[in-house]
């Protein structure tokens, strides 16, 4: 029986999708994730007083923190989503990407950006934009050059990506697009616009509070208009394909997409509430953020209704397990968001570990889980070998799931305690000493992520070296067994 997994061949007989480039991006992605997690782990040791390089300027804890967030965003997520886009877009449109050589160029440009970024951080060249610390190459707020202009390289990289992927999308402009392509088409445009806006306007155009409104929008849009659309795009692609049934409701898909596109970017200012930014802008951001929660519920309901009648896939298919665990975390994060965005909550929890817990649950618990799920599907097909070990896959899943749950709980608790202490005018020492036990737990839960990822990476390595050919039929028989 024909499963919809073999790509249709274009008339010239050359393959539609190049697996080499997908493999390269996936390997780069997991390596970046390992660097990012290791950096996060080391940074957490600073809070416990066990930071291993206390006398090093190059590897100071501040620099390591920048390694952590930037490698997660621009290393792991961008490489991972690009790999998935190479697999998905030609399949859904029926056209190849612009070029094989261009693909290699983009790959190496992007890895060069990452290396130069890390070197720049060590040399104190970071930019003062949260989540956009990649060096501009200029002294802050001036045009005095002091380093490689990496921001410019990133724009070049993003434009090349747009040429690469918009070729098939544009050729298919007369087709009716599938949901995944809605998210991918808009997501790439949003990435380029967001990056330009967030890195140029606060740096050179608007100082102070007006610039802060833009950096808030930048932090928000990078998550909401690049990472989220890419994540939902791959959910809409992989879940129906693995389950072999359509998404439950097309109408809910439409509502989900358009409400995200309209409401999400309006919430940017909620990163700086009760600040010198005008109140009406803050209230606008708060109400649209709460509106988003309603929409998120419709999307999550849509996916769980799709799973109805196929619950056994949660046991038999690791990809589905990653995707739905991620969806649960997504719902929890957004539900939390609808409350924490109000001034009532902000008074207490802003500036505390609560926000750190929130950020980890969305970036790791949701989007990293969805990429792990995609890797579970892609990797055996890319290297044409059966997964080496099911046990290692389980270790990876459970260490990550238990780890993120524990990390979220511990940071939320310490955030609440510290928040009320700030309000109660406790001496500052109370906040450090009362956070300490929670920080110990945080370090251990982060260690669980790393061990889990190492299980996954070892499994990928052994799979690629294995001699057991991948068997598509066996995969579906296993999926239908229960």
């Amino acid at each position, binding site marked *: 029986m024909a499963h919809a997994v073999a790509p249709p061949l274009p008339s010239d007989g050359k393959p539609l999708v190049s697996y080499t480039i997908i493999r390269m991006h996936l390997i780069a992605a997991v390596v970046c994730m390992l660097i990012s997690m290791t950096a996060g782990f080391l940074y957490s040791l600073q*809070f416990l*007083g066990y930071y291993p390089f*206390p006398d090093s*300027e190059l590897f*100071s804890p*501040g*620099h390591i*923190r920048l390694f952590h967030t930037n490698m997660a965003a621009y290393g792991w997520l961008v490489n991972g989503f690009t790999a998935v886009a190479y697999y998905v877009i030609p399949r859904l449109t029926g056209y190849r990407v612009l070029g094989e050589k261009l693909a290699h160029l983009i790959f190496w440009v992007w890895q060069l950006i990452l290396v130069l970024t890390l070197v720049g951080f060590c040399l*104190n060249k*970071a930019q*003062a934009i949260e989540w956009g610390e990649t060096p501009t190459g200029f002294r*802050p*707020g001036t045009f005095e050059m002091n380093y490689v202009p990496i921001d410019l390289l990133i724009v070049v990289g993003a434009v090349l990506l747009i040429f690469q992927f918009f070729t098939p999308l544009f050729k*298919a*402009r*007369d087709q*009716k*697009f599938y949901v995944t392509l*809605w998210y991918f*088409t*808009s997501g790439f*445009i949003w990435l380029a*616009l*967001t990056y330009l806006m967030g890195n140029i*306007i606060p740096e*050179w155009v*608007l*100082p*102070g*509070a*007006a*610039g*802060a*409104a833009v950096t*808030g*929008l930048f932090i928000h849009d990078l998550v909401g*208009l690049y990472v989220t659309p890419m994540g939902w795009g791959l959910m809409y692609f992989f879940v129906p394909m693995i389950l072999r049934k359509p998404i439950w409701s097309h109408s809910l898909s439409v509502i989900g*997409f358009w409400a995200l*596109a*309209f409401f999400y*970017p309006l919430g*940017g*200012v909620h*990163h*700086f509430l009760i*600040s*010198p930014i*005008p109140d009406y*802008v803050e209230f*606008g951001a708060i109400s649209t953020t709460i509106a988003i929660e309603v929409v998120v519920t419709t999307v999550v309901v849509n996916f769980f209704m799709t799973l109805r009648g196929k619950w056994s896939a949660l046991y038999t298919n690791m990809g589905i397990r990653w995707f739905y665990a991620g969806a649960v975390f997504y719902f929890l994060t957004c539900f939390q968001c609808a409350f924490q965005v109000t*001034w009532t909550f902000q*008074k*207490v929890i*802003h*500036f*505390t570990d609560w*926000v750190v817990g929130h950020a980890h649950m969305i970036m790791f618990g949701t989007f990293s889980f969805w990429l792990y799920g995609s890797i579970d599907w892609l990797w055996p097909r890319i290297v044409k070998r059966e997964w080496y070990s099911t046990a290692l896959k389980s270790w990876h899943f459970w260490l990550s799931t238990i780890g993120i749950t524990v990390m979220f709980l511990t940071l939320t608790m310490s955030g609440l305690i510290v928040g009320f202490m*700030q309000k109660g005018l406790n001496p500052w*020492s109370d906040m*450090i000493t009362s956070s300490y036990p929670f920080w110990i737990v945080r370090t251990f839960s982060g260690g669980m992520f790393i061990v889990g990822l190492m299980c996954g990476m070892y499994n990928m390595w052994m799979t690629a070296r294995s001699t057991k050919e991948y068997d598509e039929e066996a995969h579906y028989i296993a999926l239908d067994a229960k």
Partner: protein
Amino acid sequence: MERFYTFFFVAGLGCFGIAFLLSMVFPWMSLNEYHGMDYQTLEQLAATPSAEFVELQQSYPVRFEEVYPGGVTSENYAKALQLGRDLYIGQACFHCHSQFVRVVSNEQQRWGPPSEAYEYMNALNQPHLWGTRRVGPDVARLKGRHTNDWHIAHFINPKNVVPYSVMPAYAYYFDADGTPHEEGFALIAYLQWLGTTYNPTH
């Protein structure tokens, strides 16, 4: 409807544009209207060197003369402020110290008067350094809160003066006897500047 151009123009450009208008253009316009803000350049900010900068020169005259030939001048003060801010950004200080005081959670009692928009209309707040996390205290009103000596002891090892501190040591910006390097001078000059733009009669 569910075609390329819809997602390119309506979602990709249109929705982004609306948000850009509401979150950037509007706040910028109303901030200008209500605060009548004048932008201050680095030269204007550094016109009068601070007392703390003079004190650094008096405490470490030999090293100060090496680093800042000509002594306490506006040019040297501007140079110090700029480098101090570069280091504050480069060492990611803004990820653990905020630079704005809110009107809630009794923050006025702890840190001083709430921050206002005009305070940030200057070259040393472009881009702003508000931060989103307070592991350490807010530094928006740091000027004069501690002495230069306190800052030097604190940078060499924060536990010297704050026993419970989890802040990293920046001893590599100072000699073993506490004499600052150029970076040390700059960091202290910058920290002792924070809060200068606040004007109680504004």
